[in-house]
């Protein structure tokens, strides 16, 4: 069993790199993921998230570095990797003119299952995503959120120990996203490792740990709480009111302001408490022509973390 699984961690990545010509898509990245962990991989478009996932799924050879996925070396045994993982890509494909069940039969067939065994697996997968009653529905008639769940079901058919989900909820409405994350939480509770990317920072709160990618490099890796503590220094003040977005330039020009960003209809302003008092923020907004209705100290969110990391790691 020289090529068999041999690792304590579910995923172990060491100095992984991928270059396309002179462009370093993934640049010397190392980390590990525990069994059953929900691991979030965040970063801007083009930061190297999907390239990392494609390497870890055995679909793309690294330029250098190594990774063990479910104990298999991604370069030496990509087939072993593929048998052990489920992968839901950004552009997942389902056959819209097939029913829900037919799609699962098709994908199950690809993984080499058939007959009674395949029917049992389809049953279990449909249970897992709560879609039993939609078996005979045409996939094309399903709304986006349910198609996403079906794509997840098809990636679970062969009982993988790890699933890679590349922006699984892009374009999904808030209630469907919560339903989808309920499935992800249950997968993790039953011992499946979940490696997930998302641009919804509220979803990143579900992750046990988060890796932040900026321009191919892993610039931070920690629990959400630690990332907030270390990457978002200073104090975060939330401002609400009319025309508050127009105050951003004058806030950013103030020496005591570390950063000012729009958050929905309001602002998050990060200040250095040694150089500025909380209520000065509202005063600056008012001076810039805004009508402030609320000014309060808040805990930073992972969206604050994302913006701070992108600023700090920008080339």
């Amino acid at each position, binding site marked *: 069993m020289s090529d068999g699984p041999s690792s304590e961690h579910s995923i172990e990545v060491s100095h992984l790199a991928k270059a396309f010509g002179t462009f370093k898509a993934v640049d010397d990245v190392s980390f590990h993921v525990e069994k059953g962990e929900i691991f979030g991989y965040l970063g801007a478009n083009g930061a190297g998230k999907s390239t990392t996932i494609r390497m870890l799924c055995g679909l793309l050879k690294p330029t250098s570095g190594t990774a063990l996925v479910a104990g298999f070396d991604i370069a030496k045994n990509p087939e072993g990797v593929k048998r052990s993982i489920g992968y839901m890509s950004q552009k997942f494909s389902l056959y819209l003119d097939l029913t829900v069940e037919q799609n699962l039969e098709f994908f199950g067939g690809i993984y080499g299952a058939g007959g009674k065994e395949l029917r049992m697996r389809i049953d279990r997968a449909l249970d897992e995503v709560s879609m039993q009653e939609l078996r005979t529905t045409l996939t094309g008639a399903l*709304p986006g959120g349910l198609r996403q769940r079906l794509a997840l079901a098809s990636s679970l058919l062969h009982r993988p120990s790890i699933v890679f989900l590349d922006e699984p909820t892009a374009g999904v409405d808030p209630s469907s996203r919560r339903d989808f994350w309920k499935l992800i939480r249950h997968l993790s509770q039953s011992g499946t490792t979940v490696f997930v990317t998302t641009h919804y920072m509220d979803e990143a709160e579900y992750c046990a740990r988060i890796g932040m990618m900026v321009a191919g490099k892993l610039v931070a890796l920690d629990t959400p709480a630690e990332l907030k503590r270390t990457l978002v220094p200073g104090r975060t003040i939330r401002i609400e009111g009319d025309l508050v977005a127009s105050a951003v330039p004058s806030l950013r020009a103030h020496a005591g302001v570390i950063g000012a960003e729009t958050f929905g209809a309001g602002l998050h302003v990060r200040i250095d408490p040694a150089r500025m008092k909380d209520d000065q923020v509202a005063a600056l907004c008012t001076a810039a022509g805004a009508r402030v209705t609320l000014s309060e100290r808040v805990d930073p969110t992972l969206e604050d973390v994302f913006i701070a990391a992108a600023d700090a790691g920008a080339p």
Partner: protein
Amino acid sequence: MSDAPKESVVALSAENLVKRFGKTEAVRGISFSIPRGELYGLIGPDAAGKTTTLRMLSGLVRPTSGQVRVLGVDPFARGGSKMREIIGLVPQEHSLYGDLSIEENLDFFSALYGLGRKEYIERRARLLEITRLGPFLARRASQLSGGMYKKLALSCALLHQPEVLLLDEPTNGVDPVSRRELWELIYEFVGQGMAVIVSTPYMDEAARCHRVALVHAGQILREGAPGDLVRSFPGTCAEIVGGDRERVHEIVESLPEVVAASPAGARLRCVMVPNGEAAVAAKLAPEGAHLVPSPPDFEDLFLFEIAMAEHGTKVAA
């Protein structure tokens, strides 16, 4: 777009729009009126009829009944197809040439809209800076990630600065930093008088619209300024402090008083039916957890209104 904004001029209107596909009624009587310089959001769950509405507004799909007016003109009347040159549309998918590079797509749309060389160079430089697509100019559109594709599609639609812009989920898959920058850009055009109607699954974006329509099952449930709608939030919103987050999450999800729950740091944010707090608090006490009231935001409002529309009689305590 050289004219000063004339806020009173209606740029885009829908009157009792209905669209049936066979037996399915996708849109069931939608009406609104959007003046110049307004950013109007169509917000709703999957299959609410948002995309069908946007397609009717753009003249691509003929309504079963009802009327559309774009700058006073009916796009379905004789000669109305000219309207399609005045409006900009970013559909949800496949609006670009996959085998052309980023640069070639921009060149193509510039030529299509008949932009002058100098004008094109200036606008392109600005759009590339905001979208950060500059380093990827030679990459084919079909090779772009979802977010980068969206940025390019929006850039192509903004090149000719249309008076009316229709955006169907323009920022799906776009990262948080670029999303802010694209919205600043949209705001800038709106400030110059462009009328924009946008559908989006991001509730922070919905909260930035001047007015929104909450759409469900082909009908408008609520319409108004997002701040006003949130202020009239009829439900209850709180954060749960203490207890094991995962265990508490399991418990509250099973309670009929709870409309939605999601983690917010170490806490769990919870949207409840009116006067639902007492029942929820009673279930939390044995877990060592309690509720801390929290002001609602637009996402809380969305979750509440949609849950009410879907199982109103069940949850309305």
